């Protein structure tokens, strides 16, 4: 089996596994939303996770599908994925995003700790939600920005 066909097959396997997991998680979330009461968390989180998994599944299946239909595209997609420069760029972006993520999470933890001791103002639930959202989104922006910058400079 050629490496490009193996790559396409692997994408399809990942896609179907993610799709099956997404259906189970999504259905669980919807069931919890409809019937469960008094849960210590919002059941929409589970449904949201199912939707996220479904999106990842569709992306993997599309990559596998495109790769299967066009052999030239298959090979090039596989090459792009494993290309050493692209791998280096992704690693660089990943390490930068990790630093930002760690710094934000650490700062938030410190704030919550000091707030518990009364040395800093307490964060409201809404404020905490926005801070956590920022700690999730900013590293992703750094990751994407680093990839774009490195693609131009490397």
């Amino acid at each position, binding site marked *: 089996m050629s490496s490009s066909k193996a790559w396409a097959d692997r994408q399809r396997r990942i896609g179907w596994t993610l799709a099956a997991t997404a259906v189970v998680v999504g259905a669980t979330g919807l069931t919890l939303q409809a019937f469960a009461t008094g849960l210590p968390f919002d059941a929409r989180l589970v449904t949201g996770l199912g939707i996220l998994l479904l999106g990842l599944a569709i992306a993997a299946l599309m990559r596998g599908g495109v790769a299967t239909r066009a052999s030239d595209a298959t*090979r*090039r997609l596989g*090459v792009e994925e*494993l*290309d*050493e*420069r692209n791998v280096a760029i992704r690693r660089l972006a990943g390490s930068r995003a990790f630093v930002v993520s760690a710094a934000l999470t650490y700062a938030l933890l410190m704030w919550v700790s000091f707030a518990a001791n009364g040395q800093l103002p307490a964060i409201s639930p809404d404020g905490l939600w926005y801070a956590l959202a920022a700690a999730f989104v900013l590293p992703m922006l750094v990751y994407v920005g680093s990839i774009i910058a490195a*693609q131009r*400079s490397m």
Partner: protein
Amino acid sequence: MKNRLAELRATKGWTQQQLADLVGVSRQTVISLERGRYNPSITLAFRLARTFEIQIEKMFLYEEDDDEQ
């Protein structure tokens, strides 16, 4: 690190995509190598040298200044 990739590729009459396909990298990587913006791994350097059937040190020109980068 300087290299003679563009010159050698022109001698063979290959396009950047053809060379990329031969050594199993993306065309963008070939472009970056030719412009000297990216230094290849030792494995890729050997693959390139073998593709052009020359010794690796005839393709990549190491200079002391390269250590400072």
